[in-house]
């Protein structure tokens, strides 16, 4: 009995050691990014590195004057517009899937999965051509529209799982009381699923904020997003590491905060609504 307990204790100790080591490996690169953003390149690349130093936050202010501010604003606009569009389209779609047996429903779901998984350049190159002609190239609106390809499927799966938690009897009794299906969605389902919709917005927003492939191809200067701005610190001769790191930290921190706010729902989001 004693030996058994000793063994369990040892396993628990090993489990903690592994978990802490994995956490260290996950966080150290981000800590290092922060260190680079607060040291001049000469100090940052000195070996051995100074562990104790006076952090220099000056680049965090300087980057705003040199175009990063516009990119930050562009990304914020893309996210706001894109998420609004996603919610308007995905909420009724998820409602339809949850409340009705739809003809060809299987194919709708397969289409969502295909749209979510097709490699970006299959639609980005044709959209580059179309956007040039329509005047949507290098615009915030153009990006917000094309981002729906991955945002709508993701949001439908997620909102669907939140709507399923609403008891069906509530919807049915609203119908008996004379509500139309649209009113039932707006007055019964939406208030109950509101926290889920908020979490969906945050997760879709994070995906849009972090998007690189499409933004790189469909923007140039006017609608340049925050990620492309970070990549832009790679000059012709050398990378401006301190500015780049400061811009990167500025771009990452809000996402970590938002993820923290939606923490309860993050697991659900990452498992596409499969798990609470």
């Amino acid at each position: 009995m004693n030996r058994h307990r000793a063994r369990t204790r040892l396993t628990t100790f090993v489990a903690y050691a592994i978990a802490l080591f994995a956490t260290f490996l996950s966080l150290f690169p981000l800590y290092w990014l922060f260190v680079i953003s607060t040291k001049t390149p000469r100090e940052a690349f000195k070996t051995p590195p100074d562990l104790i130093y006076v952090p220099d936050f000056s680049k965090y202010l300087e980057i705003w004057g040199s175009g990063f501010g516009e990119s930050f604003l562009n990304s914020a606009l893309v996210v706001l517009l894109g998420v609004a569009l996603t919610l308007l389209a995905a909420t009724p779609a998820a409602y339809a899937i949850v409340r009705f047996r739809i003809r060809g429903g299987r194919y709708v779901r397969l289409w969502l999965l295909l749209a979510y998984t097709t490699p970006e350049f299959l639609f980005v190159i044709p959209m580059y051509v179309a956007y040039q002609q329509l005047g949507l190239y290098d615009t915030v609106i153009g990006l917000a529209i094309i981002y729906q390809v991955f945002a709508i499927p993701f949001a439908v799966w997620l909102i669907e799982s939140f709507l399923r938690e609403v008891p069906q009897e509530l919807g049915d009794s609203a119908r008996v009381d004379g509500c139309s299906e649209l009113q039932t969605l707006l007055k019964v389902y939406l208030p109950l699923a509101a926290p889920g919709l908020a979490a969906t917005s945050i997760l879709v927003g994070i995906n849009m904020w972090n998007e690189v492939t499409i933004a790189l191809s469909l923007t140039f200067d006017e609608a340049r997003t925050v990620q492309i701005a970070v990549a832009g610190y790679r000059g012709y001769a050398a990378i401006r590491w301190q500015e780049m790191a400061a811009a990167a930290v500025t771009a990452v921190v809000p996402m970590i905060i938002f993820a923290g706010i939606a923490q309860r729902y993050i697991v659900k989001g990452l498992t596409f609504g499969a798990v609470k």
Partner: protein
Amino acid sequence: MTLFRRPAGRRVDRGSRFLVPALLILGVTSVYPTLYSIYMSVFDWNWGQRFNFVGLANYLDVLTGDRFRTALWNTIVFTVSAVSVEFVLGLGLALVLGRLGFGRGVLRTLLLIPLMVSGIIVSMIWKVMLDPTVGIVSYGLQLMGLPRMGFFGDPGMAMATIVLVDTWWQTAFVFIVLSAGLQALPTEPFEAANVDGANARQRFRYLTLPLLRPTILVVLMFRTVDCLKVFAIIFGTTGGGPMTTTESVQVLAYRVAFKQLNMSMSMTIMVVFAAFAVLVLLLYQWLLPGREREGAA
């Protein structure tokens, strides 16, 4: 007449209306460009005056040329390596975290943070950390008495380095989905196995793995299609080099379209590659039990 329409039938028809906005937007953003790509793939177009019908010549070029075959091979090597490594580590982490009591929630949240970082920022972080001369990792290797390594710049190592970067970035996805799957497993079979005297290895082999199979397949499916699409972490680190050792299909398509302006060739590449990706996806769908299909795991 409408008065006598069967309620059940009405229910079906009225539901479809709610799908219209989503399907309209997806039609414009996914169906239209796909059809356009297929149409353009039988022309020779260089974003200028040159616009000739060439039939299947582009397809012949893509399928017989070395460039696409190399890129496809690189993409497959990357996908198989990254998905395997991430799966083993993610499953291991999920099992390890499952044993913890105090602090499990906090550690789980902290482990998810890499997922909130964009591909381009991930690239930049690892580019600076793995720099052969000034990188902190090189310094660490030197302290341990290990030889200096080229990482992204070494043709023999660049692909492995990109797999390492993806592992840092995405293992948490495998970890979190499998953790959730493990927590949702029924407890009775495990109690029964305990009574029957099964050891830990037997319980894992004959209970945990088979019960977890649907979740495992969903994780592998999403990681696989995501890895096939790999772009940002290559674009941000090696750009496809040295030579073409890390050029994935999407990096190739980007170069052909935006550097060489060979639009129709790029679309042909993507039509072929998307067909390949869809086949892989359908293979996973076929392996999944009915209830778990179409992403609704």
